[in-house]
């Protein structure tokens, strides 16, 4: 015999190969199922509500007669919360990441990183309730300067409370992933900079940070995607007042909170409310999809450079 051949056809091996492939394909089917379940009712929705109203109007009043379905009001509600959450979370998360990767002694790093990751594991109901009953009265209303932007006193809900809660939730995402990116930067780059007389702060900000930039940006994009998709914190602390504003001390409604509030309970399948949930879901899905793909691409590029 000139070739090495197996003694038996090994059907078992092939069956296992097939079985494992099915497991992999199941994940693709999940995405397909998500798209299918969103598309159907969304098309039904656009048969009733013109796309021009949905995409270009600022009135989101589904319960009025006649109802208004201008999705921009709740898209901006989501962006409002996300904007302020990121203004809080990006500096804190990046500061923590630079500290972890460049300054912290190994022992401190080894305990600090899991502790920060614990923060990522706290249920969002708990964070939402914390934002509503602690951050709102004891931090925001206590420190807000008087009547600035309409004042913060006496408001039971506001975007900023949800923002700080979400910020707290995404800090560990930014810190942990950016720390991974910065520790992956080769030592040689740092030592070269030290040899040229750079101070520690210069090395961290001028060498390591730019070298890890694509990983850092990926962590921030992922954090934004999380913030946009977060539900419970905005439901509990953000209010339910569809309102196109970036004012942090206003009560708003986010896309996710509209979905959560409207689709709870047994709403009739064919109703316009039911369909509007899917239309909003489609917008949300594609917004986060774009950000996720950008983030995945950036991480991949970063890995290619240093691995």
């Amino acid at each position, binding site marked *: 015999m000139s070739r090495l051949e197996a003694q038996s056809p090994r059907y078992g091996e092939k069956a296992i190969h097939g079985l494992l492939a099915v497991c992999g394909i199941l*994940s693709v089917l999940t995405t397909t199922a998500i798209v299918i379940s969103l598309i159907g009712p969304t098309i039904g929705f656009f048969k009733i509500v013109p796309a021009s109203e949905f995409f270009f109007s600022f009135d989101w009043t589904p319960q009025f007669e006649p109802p208004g379905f201008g999705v921009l009001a709740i898209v901006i509600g989501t962006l409002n919360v996300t904007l302020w959450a990121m203004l809080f979370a990006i500096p*804190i998360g990046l500061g*923590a990441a630079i500290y972890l990767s460049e300054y912290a002694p190994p022992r401190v790093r080894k305990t600090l990183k899991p*502790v920060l990751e614990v923060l990522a594991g706290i249920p969002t109901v708990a964070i939402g309730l*914390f934002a509503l009953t*602690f951050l709102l009265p004891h931090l925001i209303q206590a420190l807000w300067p008087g009547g600035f932007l309409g004042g913060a006193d006496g408001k039971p809900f506001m975007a900023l409370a949800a923002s700080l809660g979400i910020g*707290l939730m995404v800090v560990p995402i930014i*810190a942990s992933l950016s720390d991974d990116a910065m520790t992956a930067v080769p030592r040689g780059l740092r030592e070269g900079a030290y040899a040229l007389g750079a101070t520690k702060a210069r090395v961290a900000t001028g060498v390591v940070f730019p070298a890890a930039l694509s990983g850092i940006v990926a962590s921030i994009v992922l954090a934004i995607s999380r913030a946009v998709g977060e539900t419970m914190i905005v439901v509990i602390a953000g209010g339910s007042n569809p309102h196109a504003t970036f004012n942090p001390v206003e009560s708003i409604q986010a896309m996710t909170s509209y979905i959560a509030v409207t*689709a709870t309970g047994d709403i009739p399948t064919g109703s316009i409310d039911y369909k509007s949930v899917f239309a909003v879901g489609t917008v949300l899905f594609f917004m986060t999809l774009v950000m996720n793909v950008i983030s995945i691409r950036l991480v991949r590029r970063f890995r290619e450079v240093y691995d």
Partner: protein
Amino acid sequence: MRGSEAAVPRSRLAVAGARATTLAMLRQQPRGDVIRNAAFAAMLLLAVLIALAGLLALLIQAFAKGASALSPDLFTNPPSTAFPDKAGFRPAIIGSLELIAGVVVFVVPVGIGAALYLEEYADSSRWWNRLIELNVQNLAAVPSIIYGILGLAFIVRGPLDLGFILAAGSMTLALLVLPMVIIASREAIRAVPDSIRQGSLALGATKWQTIRAQVLPASIPGIATGVILAVSRALGETAPLLLVGATVFVTFDPTPFSPDGYSAMPVQIFNYALRPQEEFQTLAFAGIIVMLVVLLAMNSFAIWLRNRYEQRW
């Protein structure tokens, strides 16, 4: 004689000269640099402290507000609107345990299977395998409420049409955390060096025998860590359950296929939290304490597992 005599002072001179130069250089380092350096380090530390303060404040507040309601009643009594001092979480706890059991049963085989396929079998130069990979990474970051919509349209109604039963909630949560398990398992499998596989194949083992006897045992700790973290995520999720019928007021012990509805721990907490009366707020915080204790224990165990069994090849 004269040569060595001269050599000593000359080398001393050189050292002294080098020291003087270095000191002069260091003194030349602008004051601003030194201050900027210290200020930068202080800012970084401040960032870490703010994050930790947030975590600490959350824990302290939960204990301060909820501790008074911690009692065995919390675990044994059903919820009640009339008697908040007697109300508990029993159906919610049972519901959460059943939900999680379903998640584990689904997610462990399918998650590990998909990870094995992607790491051991899939040829990553093929577009369909790259598609699966991108798809898993994207699914891991799809908002949880979208999974709720999927569960509502596909599992509760639509093709599967199971109705608002606990098993539907369990399936929704399983789909939600499946990508986490796949990603963690892939990393654990990738960490097993190729030499192990080649040694096994060279001894005549088939591919599956190699995976079963060498690759899987070596990657079990990493996979277990991923599964625990995924389960703790599923345990804390509220939003998708709101859409697939975790109806909030359940006073009986839920069962997986009963059409009477079910409840889960985070949903019950949410329901209590929405009520204006002080007693229900206290109950919500007591529920949060219970969940935090369970989740912190699970996460710490996962991290311990990762550190304890992390193999250096």
